[in-house]
């Protein structure tokens, strides 16, 4: 596990709307290496970091750590229950999964396996 905040680096890349391939081409850092750094699986060398930051047009200060929030499973379950209650209270029932699949199908996606799987769940 890396101690470097790769998620922040990914966010900076996303803000520039650059793909991994774009960045790799511009910096000479391999696509796989950038992915490892962004996913917290490798610490970047200083020279690599400088290339990436320069590509994004930002400085070291923009890497200001944004600590990753850790949420307990109990908080998740309570939050989901509260959300569902609130939606019910304002008159919004459960989300319409079939309508979502219809929408995907309109966009030419093959949703056969999703429909079949959904049918097995109440």
């Amino acid at each position, binding site marked *: 596990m890396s101690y470097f905040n790769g*998620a922040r680096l*990914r*966010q900076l890349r*996303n*803000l520039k*709307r650059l793909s*991994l391939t774009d960045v790799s081409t511009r910096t000479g850092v391999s696509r796989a290496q950038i*992915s490892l750094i*962004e*996913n*917290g*699986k490798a610490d970047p060398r200083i020279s690599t970091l400088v290339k990436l930051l320069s590509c994004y047009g930002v400085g070291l200060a923009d890497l200001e750590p*944004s600590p*990753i*929030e*850790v*949420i*307990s*499973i109990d908080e*998740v*379950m309570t*939050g*989901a*229950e*509260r*959300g*569902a*209650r*609130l*939606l*019910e*209270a*304002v*008159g*919004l*029932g*459960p*989300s*319409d*999964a079939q*309508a*979502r*699949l*219809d*929408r995907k199908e309109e966009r030419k996606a*093959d*949703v*056969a*396996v*999703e*429909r*079949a*799987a*959904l049918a*097995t*769940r*109440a």
Partner: protein
Amino acid sequence: MRQPEKAELALDRARSLGKDPILRSLWLAKAADCAIKDRAVLVGGAAVNLHTGSYRPTDVDMCALLDASDRQALVELGFANAQGDHFEYRFDDGETWLLEFPGSQVDGDVSMIQLSAGDTLTVIRLESLIVDRLLQATDRTSVTFEEAVRLCLAAFEKTDWSWVSAEIGRRDTLEPGLGVSDVYDQALHEVRSLLDPLGQS
């Protein structure tokens, strides 16, 4: 890093914790995360369901870089390769769940869920998920807009709206033709009008 034994244990949890869709999706996701080399991040509808509790996801979307050995590892764990990057898992109680790996990169920030003492799962951060749903709603259909409204409303109190506003502003600057700021304004207007009678906006 691949952790096949932890993947098996996570799948056992998914099987043994009953039919609760949130617990099932989280432990299935954890099983996949441990089976493959890359870190998998839960995104999409299953992530929305963590906040709305009533989304009924049609699959469990995860962002991760997947190669042939990862696909093989998922199959060895008990998933069937259903279609493309869709993997199917059939529970003994008759339910079939699908995992999909729509891409390798998460568009936004992440949070961690502490599933148990030794198990965490990475998920897209709520505020990034809201931005994602608002971007989807720029297709101007009622289905995607309603889903964006549902998430904004269900998570209204716990959302860092200043972060969302800043991010929407940045996205709007990057792609002004998309109209995501308009969708955001309309969604918030809708949410406030729904919450007003409850005195919660």
